[in-house]
């Protein structure tokens, strides 16, 4: 029988790359969350720096535009004392026809230790992980529609921070789930950590019925979807990913699925509202809710730094050849 080890883990079952939440055991997810707990307090110190990655080089390879995610990875790496190089791939060798693997080989020759990769093609980080040396680590910052594992982990951290125990939680993910790698990572995280019920909510064009295969309940009615839930995760309506008329208009979406203060009352009174950002006020979520007491959208950003510090320090301390 041919057993393929998860490429993210070494022979000792330790995390050496973070490519997707899917396939990682709950123990590894909890290890990341517990480690991130330590880093939250580092971000509150006057001296926001620890020497764990001193002398290591973190290369941000963003083939797809993103200032926010790239910035939080940069902050996280610098707080670990790593050297950070931001590669503006669009304006560089890739546009001159260099292949992805050649780019990686060249950067590896400059002694990169960690690659943080965002790519529009699903699977690109896996390809890179297969071709780097054992001491080099790859962190997926989002690949196509497939996976955004650090966002998934910071969402899990946020939920655990406010709700403690996953086993009695109902979580609703509302919006453009079809095109959302964040939603996929959230779903894998929630099901692995044992959430009682995960619902995906949205119009049939954006929330296809076959998502039920992931172990979620598919709802096309917002009230049914968020009734009595503990956590509402609102997703951005992604104009740039939609090709073809999947929705009549953003206004039409807001009418049926926009999260307003009135509609939020369908959820539990102590339900928390999350959003991976950036927010389109008045499209998927109302300003009232964004700025309201139940929103934990800004804490998500703070926790995101601690979680990325945790991921980088964990992979950097584990050798792929073991």
């Amino acid at each position, binding site marked *: 029988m041919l057993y393929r080890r998860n490429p993210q883990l070494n022979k000792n079952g330790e995390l050496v790359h973070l490519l997707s939440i899917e396939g990682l055991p709950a123990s590894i997810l909890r290890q990341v969350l517990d*480690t991130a707990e330590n880093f939250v*307090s580092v971000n509150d110190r006057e*001296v926001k*720096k620890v020497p764990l990655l001193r002398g290591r080089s973190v290369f941000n390879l963003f083939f797809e535009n993103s200032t926010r995610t790239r910035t939080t990875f940069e902050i996280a790496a610098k707080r670990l004392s790593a050297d950070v190089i931001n590669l503006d791939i669009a304006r560089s060798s890739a546009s001159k026809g260099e292949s992805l693997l050649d780019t990686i080989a060249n950067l590896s020759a400059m002694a990169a230790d960690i690659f943080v990769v965002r790519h529009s093609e699903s699977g690109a980080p896996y390809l890179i992980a297969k071709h780097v040396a054992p001491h080099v680590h790859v962190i997926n910052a989002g690949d196509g529609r497939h996976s955004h594992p650090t966002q998934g982990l910071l969402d899990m951290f946020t939920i655990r921070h406010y709700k403690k125990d996953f086993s009695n939680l109902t979580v609703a993910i509302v919006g453009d789930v079809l095109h959302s790698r964040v939603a996929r990572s959230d779903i894998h995280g929630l099901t692995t950590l044992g959430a009682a019920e995960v619902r995906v909510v949205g119009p049939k064009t954006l929330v296809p019925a076959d998502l039920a295969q992931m172990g979620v309940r598919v709802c096309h009615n917002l009230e049914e979807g968020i009734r009595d839930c503990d956590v509402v995760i609102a997703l951005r309506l992604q104009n740039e990913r939609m090709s073809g008329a999947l929705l009549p208009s953003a206004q039409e979406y807001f009418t049926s699925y926009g999260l307003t203060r009135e509609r939020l009352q369908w959820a539990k009174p102590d339900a928390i509202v999350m959003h991976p950002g950036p927010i389109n006020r008045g499209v998927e979520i109302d300003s009232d809710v964004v700025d309201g007491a139940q929103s934990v959208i800004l804490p998500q950003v703070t926790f995101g730094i601690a979680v990325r510090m945790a991921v980088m320090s964990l992979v950097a301390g584990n050798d792929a050849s073991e």
Partner: protein
Amino acid sequence: MSAIDSDALRAQSAVDAVRDMPTLYQALLLGVGALCRSDTHLVGIATGGAWLAERLQSDLKLSGEPGVLSSAMHRDDFAQRGLAAREPTRLDFDVNGAHIIVIDDVLYTGRTIRAVINELYDFGRPASVALAVLVDRNGRELPIQADVAAVRIELPVSKSVALRQDVAGELSVVIKDRR
């Protein structure tokens, strides 16, 4: 006497020396009490030192909670062992100008103390730092010494010594073979 016999003898006398936990704790309490000023802060190293610091804080009738120091962020073996994150550092006082007594269960190579002092310095410049430990064993790899030690023992390299807390909260010192 062969080398193996003298190792076994040393190990046995160490086991005898750490058997009586109440006596060890009393010695630590007396030593720390003698070092304390009116404005001293106790800080225990997670996790064994923190257990001791809690008891000392209470028995010395100091107000508030003792601080907790984690060596995780400044350890020198991160590349070999990776990150073992346990209880994070928690200091609810200003380190700048503070007189601090660091409490730990076992002083061995001295590397944990070096890491913990670096951690302390991330929070400010203390006026003074003293070290009080329950067990001071041979094997120093850095020029670091305790100001107070309840007991000094000699152990062969093959043995390890650690503080344990059972489910009832009772502390005991355990010597066993190193894995």
